[in-house]
């Protein structure tokens, strides 16, 4: 359906799309080449990178895969909180359900990758609908607390001794044998490219969604839900759509997490992990989408380098940095940057407006 319409206006929209997204596409190209660039700087040969031999390149691929996973997780949270204005404190569950289900199905039940993907999809839909059930009954902060309740129950179940044979309880889920072609150690470059591709595709789909008629209604709900209702929008339906998209994204980010990490720790189901998503979009800019990805990179790299350089003082320094970020970059990196550039264009527009002779007001 889409293609028949866009074919009539052949190349031009494609060119316009390329121009619009040139920044993102440039980042994509850099990220595609990065494993090789790092290798060259490090004096490693290209063929050894392709053979997944250990070295700085392989190490940073692992770090970037973590960033992609965090980015997807934060992106799904930004859609709820930043775009639709829906405050959920149970977002870690969205992620952990995907992570644990993948691990348990592969390890304890010997499922293959395709049925596991199907099961994660179903689980993601079910948990989104679970949140949707309480949605019309509780508003705002109460909804946040109810979702926190759901997530806490899940966290407790995952850690319980009864579930230990499946989840590994406090120790975490270990010994998940990932199919050889996705092995995070032997096939890291492939996993890197797959994670990069998924992140970029999801990011572009999210951007399209937010720009679509449905996405615009979600923004209207964030701005003034009563008014949106009064205009005739059944806002509940839109919130359910957003919950479904967000839950699916987070669950698949969780699945990637299980594929990439040797241990699935119960921490990913806890409140602390949800706060990471919140922190990431605060750093990157709430409601900006790209901020979720940039924030994830800043968060993970800061964490890594400060830990490497300062060791024990790292936690304290990170705290100071986050306080400074909130003080001086209040709308996040992307949000503050956009505001400055739009203020600049507004000033120019205002000057042009003043110079232009007034056409209205015939009196």
């Amino acid at each position, binding site marked *: 359906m889409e293609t028949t319409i866009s074919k009539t206006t052949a190349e031009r929209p494609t060119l316009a799309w390329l121009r619009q997204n040139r920044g993102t596409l440039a980042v994509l190209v850099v990220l595609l080449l990065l494993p090789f660039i790092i290798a060259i700087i490090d004096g490693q040969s290209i063929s050894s990178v392709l053979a997944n031999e250990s070295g700085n390149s392989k190490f940073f691929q692992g770090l970037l895969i973590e960033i992609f996973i965090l980015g997807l997780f934060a992106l799904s949270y930004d859609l709820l909180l930043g775009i639709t204005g829906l405050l959920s404190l149970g977002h870690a569950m969205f992620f952990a359900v995907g992570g644990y289900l993948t691990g348990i199905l592969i390890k304890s039940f010997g499922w293959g990758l395709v049925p596991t993907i199907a099961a994660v999809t179903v689980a993601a839909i079910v948990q989104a609908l679970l949140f949707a059930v309480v949605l019309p009954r509780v508003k705002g902060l109460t909804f946040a607390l109810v979702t926190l309740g759901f997530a806490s129950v899940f966290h407790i179940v995952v850690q319980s001794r009864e579930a230990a044979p499946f989840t590994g309880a406090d120790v975490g889920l270990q010994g998940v044998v990932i199919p050889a072609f996705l092995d995070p150690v032997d096939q890291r470059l492939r996993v890197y490219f797959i994670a990069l591709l998924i992140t970029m595709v999801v990011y572009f789909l999210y951007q399209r969604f937010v720009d679509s008629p449905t996405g615009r209604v979600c923004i209207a709900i964030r701005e003034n839900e*009563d008014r949106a209702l009064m205009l005739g929008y059944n806002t509940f339906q839109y919130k359910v759509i957003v919950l479904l998209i967000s839950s699916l994204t987070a669950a698949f980010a969780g699945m990637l997490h299980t594929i990439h990490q040797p241990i699935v720790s119960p921490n990913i189901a806890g409140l602390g992990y949800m706060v990471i998503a919140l922190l990431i979009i605060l750093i990157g800019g709430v409601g900006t989408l790209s901020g979720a990805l940039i924030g994830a990179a800043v968060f993970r790299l800061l964490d890594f380098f400060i830990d490497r350089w300062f060791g024990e003082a790292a936690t304290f320094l990170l705290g100071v940095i986050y306080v400074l970020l909130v003080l001086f970059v209040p709308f996040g990196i992307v949000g503050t940057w956009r505001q400055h550039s739009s203020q600049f264009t507004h000033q120019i527009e205002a000057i042009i407006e003043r110079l232009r002779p007034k056409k209205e007001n015939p009196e």
Partner: protein
Amino acid sequence: MSDDIILETYNVRKEFGALVAVADVSIRVVRGTLHSIIGPNGAGKTTFFNVVSGYLPATSGRIVYNGQDITQAPMHRRAHVGMGRSFQITNLFPNLTVLENIRLSHQAVGKNSFRLLRSHRRFGEHIDRADAIINRVGLTRYRDLPARTLAHGDQRKLELGMILAADPEMLLLDEPTAGMASDEVPELMALIQEIQAEGSKTVLLVEHNMNVVMNVSDMITVMHHGEVLAEGTPAEISSNETVQQAYLGNLYENLQEASDHA
């Protein structure tokens, strides 16, 4: 007048605990007329209005719109049967542009709201309609500015534009001139009257300043203490003894002024 009733309420009652805000109000609004509800502050006008528009549930009574019982219909359903309302306190999407405010209003009554992956710019009908409305209410210069940056009077015009965009049969306007500079009021009222006349729309208007509605209304309902005190044409209302006796204060002077104008 003819019997073509578009909206009828039967003994609509709204209680907040022990307080009876609206006590069994029955009104009939004739299609194609400009019907005003007036009364001093606290008369229950806005509460009645909120019940009619579905913002508050009625305690008892029935609301019939175009022969359809809408007493239980939720807010978002009423927009789809042809009712559009404005709020006394300006109620916009403050951070969205003027264009987007109106575009969203038109999209709401269309069929494109569940398109998830195409840019909203590809649905030109909504943008074209929004641009026409922006011209109509005289906000062309502010098209791409966020609604919050507009002056109060312009925000009231935007509010009116948002209702118009949905092309409702009936406009429910809650003190459309509230907080406007006095020289802007006649302009907005003239605009409302024009819109009503050219689109043969029905307008139900709530106002506490009688002067504003005297010259433009076809029918006036006076509310006091949650009840209907009087109903009639502007001429009948301004010469009504009960109305005058009940409001020896402010309203009496307003009535005097109004009849002086007439």
